[in-house]
């Protein structure tokens, strides 16, 4: 049996999500947006910082969601793209003295290229084999960053300290608040672009590949091109998230970008709902706050508590936040009828 036949007979790993179900309705989007804009005005700087991290991880989770939910490819190597983005921004800011905002598109482009190139050999692999190949990338990355050859630029194991930007034009805003709104603007831009991408011709091609590769190629979709493209886009967005992360945390070091991060992002995607872009922010909240909650319950067993919580989520709502949203929608519809 050839590999192609195997794929056909296998049940699809990712459930087909119709493209309209990938986004939120207008009303809900506006409420979420208003909350994201208004909350920081009333909370402490620390909470604002946490919200910034929430948006940054949401971007990274969304990037993975485009890859897996959109084109049906698995990746456990997102931490590597995140690291490349973070280091690109940090090095440009600290060694070349570049403005932080300008470093982000560069980080995105560098990661797009990196992801696109990595997508070439990855084409020959699918399913769990692809996941393993990307896993290798994630394990290798921290060691590559430690290499003596790059040490002059990367700071080696000691990492690099990044200067946090002040609010421009003398705006009466703390650094944290400015960075939050900056991140929010970037996130909204990328979110809208992603939604449009998935609604476009390319998005349809991604989804056709996800649903059935052979049928897609029969319809004239250039499978190789679109698969690598999905990798590139996903890596590019992850790179921008990494760059923002480096600025928010003010520090990059190899230990921050281990396989643990890749698994967290993967987890965030599953909890948020595979293929449902707005779920990314829920998934991101899960990977940021649930470990803190688990630690609050028991310090010695925080890992076990986290495991139990994760298990509960997967057991009760296997489709993650998307499922909850659908249930809520149905309830609301019922309520209206009555």
């Amino acid at each position, binding site marked *: 049996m050839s590999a192609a036949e195997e794929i056909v007979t296998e049940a699809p790993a990712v459930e087909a999500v119709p493209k309209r179900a990938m986004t939120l309705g207008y009303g809900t989007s506006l409420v979420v947006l208003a909350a994201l804009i208004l909350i920081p005005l009333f909370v*402490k*700087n*620390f*909470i604002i*910082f*946490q919200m910034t*991290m929430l948006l940054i991880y949401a971007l990274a989770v969304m990037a993975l969601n485009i890859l897996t939910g959109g084109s049906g490819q698995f990746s456990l190597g997102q931490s590597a793209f995140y690291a490349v983005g973070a280091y690109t921004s940090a090095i440009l800011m600290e060694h070349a003295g570049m403005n932080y905002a300008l470093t982000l598109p560069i980080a995105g482009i560098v990661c797009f290229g990196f992801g696109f190139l990595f997508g070439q050999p990855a084409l020959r692999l699918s399913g769990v084999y692809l996941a393993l190949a990307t896993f290798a990338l994630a394990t290798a990355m921290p*060691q590559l960053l*430690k290499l003596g050859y790059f040490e002059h630029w990367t700071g*080696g*194991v*000691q*990492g690099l*300290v990044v200067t946090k930007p002040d609010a421009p034009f003398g705006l009466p805003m703390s650094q944290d608040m400015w960075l939050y709104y900056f991140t929010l603007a970037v996130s909204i831009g990328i979110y809208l672009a992603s939604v449009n991408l998935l609604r476009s011709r390319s998005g349809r091609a991604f989804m056709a590949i996800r649903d059935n590769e052979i049928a897609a190629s029969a319809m004239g979709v250039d499978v190789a091109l679109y698969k690598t493209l999905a990798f590139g886009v996903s890596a590019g967005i992850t790179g921008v998230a990494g760059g923002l*992360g480096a600025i928010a*945390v*003010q*520090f*990059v*070091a*190899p*230990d*921050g970008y*281990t396989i*643990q*991060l890749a698994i967290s992002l993967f987890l965030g995607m599953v909890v948020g709902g595979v293929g449902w872009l707005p779920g990314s922010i829920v998934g991101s909240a899960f990977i*940021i706050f649930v*470990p803190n909650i688990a*630690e609050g319950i028991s*310090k*010695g067993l*925080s*890992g076990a508590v986290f495991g139990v919580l994760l298990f509960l989520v997967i057991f009760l709502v296997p489709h993650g936040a998307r499922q909850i949203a659908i249930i809520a929608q149905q309830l609301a519809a019922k309520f209206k009828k009555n």
Partner: protein
Amino acid sequence: MSVTRPLAAFVAALALVSASWSAALAQKKYDTGASDTEIKIGNIMPYSGAASAYGVIGKTEEAYFRKINAEGGINGRKITFISYDDAYTPPKTVEQARKLVESDEVLIIFNSLGTPPNSAIQKYMNQKKVPQLFVATGATKWNDPKEYPWTMGWQPNYQSESIIYAKYILKNKPNAKIAVLYQNDDYGKDYLKGFKDGLGAKAASMIVAEDSYEVTEPTIDSHIVRLKASGADVFFNITTPKFAAQAIKKNAELDWHPLHFLNNVSSSIGSVIKPAGFEAAQGIISSQYLKDPTDPQWKTDKGMIAWNEFLDKYYPDANRADASVMYAYTVAQGLEHVLRACGDNLTRENIMKQAASLRDLELGGLLPGIKANTSATDFAPLSQLQLMRFKGETWDRFGEILSGDVGG
């Protein structure tokens, strides 16, 4: 008896009372995190993740502060010890440090662990002017009071330790051919740098083989084989406990008997030497500043008895062979000393001032003769070590107390 005398006495008494009252008022000074009844101390530890073995440090400290509170606190104030998990990942450390400072409003962050995590928060802590006191890492960069006046180290740094070995080799074996094995991270590289600095111009000709391993490797046997093949007669072993035991064992198996230097990170008898076998460890040279609880020579030592009593009562499940338990006990005592010295002036500034004025402080867990010293220009409390050679079933300390202060 005239009427005026009791009146005069009353006035005098009143004057005295008000004087002492206003004096007390003038003395009591607090920053966020301290009050008449409590002192809030923050801490960040890797309770989960790759470095979770060190989490025991946080647990021991928590037990020690419980002991202080049970005995009445520090100058009448109870210690609230808030310790968070960062899983040894710098971004999480930043989040936890900000939570401690901005949300829990702690007075200081004490003994946060690891070089990358502490590097990640150093700038933030110094901007906020919150003490980052007695950090749990042996990197050299924490002794930099000019650039970072709110950060202070604790233990002898890695570089000064390997300088001591280098000096010993230059003096006793000037024609040595040296093989070095080190862990490929900040800790290993810091040791290596100190060693090369210590050997000076002769480093290039004396070091005949250099090999590194990753902390994720299951075994380092192949590295030892390679180093033996270099024909070296001195071996500098910069490894963490698990690997140190493997290296000692493998050396014996290969019948390779160079003059073996072992970094003090792995000098524990209980967790390194015993598993590797006493026979294989004879003649190894290391150095130490803490008493090793698994070393029989301290059985009747006063400091060791106090340590055992503390563990019996407040942390009975502690693994007493774990060097981290002794480490945490000693550094917590160091903090206790600083807080007591602050008296009623619990400002962040005064804490740094008191921490920077330790004079010959001796603690129960330190080797006899080793003292903590700091000044406005020296932010490295412990910088002394004593060489020791393994003999029989115990470390045999020799030579005088050595010091190798290195600035950051």
